[in-house]
């Protein structure tokens, strides 16, 4: 029995939902950040699955670009987390509820 396209899409949907739930229920900034990475990976899985099943290269190029954006997001996001932690001495998102750094 060969895995169908719908299997990969279902797995991707489950992973994305777990990521959304994590972003909603977590209060630690770094944990929320990692949940966002999980959501990006779920979307990457759909891209690769469609690309493989329809024999089209575009999906994998999109995955390449999404990975680059994720790397940039990691660099800038962790910089922001360090700056906020330096000012507030806390990683709880409830403590950082105002826009002022």
């Amino acid at each position, binding site marked *: 029995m060969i895995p169908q396209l719908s*299997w990969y899409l279902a797995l991707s949907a489950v992973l994305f939902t777990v990521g959304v739930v994590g972003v909603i229920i977590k209060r630690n900034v770094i944990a929320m950040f990692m949940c966002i990475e*999980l959501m990006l990976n779920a979307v990457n899985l759909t891209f690769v699955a469609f690309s493989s099943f*329809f*024999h089209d290269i575009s999906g*994998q190029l999109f995955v390449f670009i999404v990975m*680059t*954006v994720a790397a*940039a997001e990691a660099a800038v996001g962790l*910089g922001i987390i*360090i700056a906020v932690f330096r000012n507030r001495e806390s990683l709880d998102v409830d403590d950082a509820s105002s826009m002022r750094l």
Partner: protein
Amino acid sequence: MTAVLFILFAGLAIGCAISMVVQRNPLYSAISLIGVFISLACLYVMLAAPFIAAVQVIVYAGAIMVLVVFVIMLLNVEEEDRQPLRLRALVPIAVILAAIFFAETAFIIYFVQASPVSLSRNVSDVGLTSSIGGGLFTTYLLPFEITSILLLMAIVGAMTLARSGGLLPSRAAVVPGDQVFSKEMMDRREAGDLTPVVTHTTEEAAELLGARDERTK
């Protein structure tokens, strides 16, 4: 055989993802997330995309997660303590909405026909490095260049944000011999009343501040 492998890696990915959300220590969730990345890389190999699988392991499980673990270690993050659930009244509403959502999904899956597109798995060169490079440098050259500019901006932004500056802005000049305040005095969150007060003489200001000059008496 491939179905068994798919179920193995998909179960590993879902288990690691749920473990990531459930863990209270951020370091453990980071390690679970690495498990998700590795199992997704195995799924990419099954999907005949070896280049993306390698990049997944190198960039995600390597670079990004090392950065995250480094920041966790640097900031010395402690475990989250259990806090009381906010908005407890909304829990039954959330359960009802989730049940409706699952019912709709089951309805769609049950009634939608399987797609008639023939998904034959022929041998192709779609996932190979050479074809990805060819696509990246011909059809998608402009997004590739924009991506490099994005990375440059990310480097500059990360350096600007994480530079040690504290409360002083980047252009502030520190005069030698000037007073140095402790962080508690400069911390404006601790200060209570910060509304400006208009005075015309030094004595008035001293009175307002509670520091009366003894020589004026």
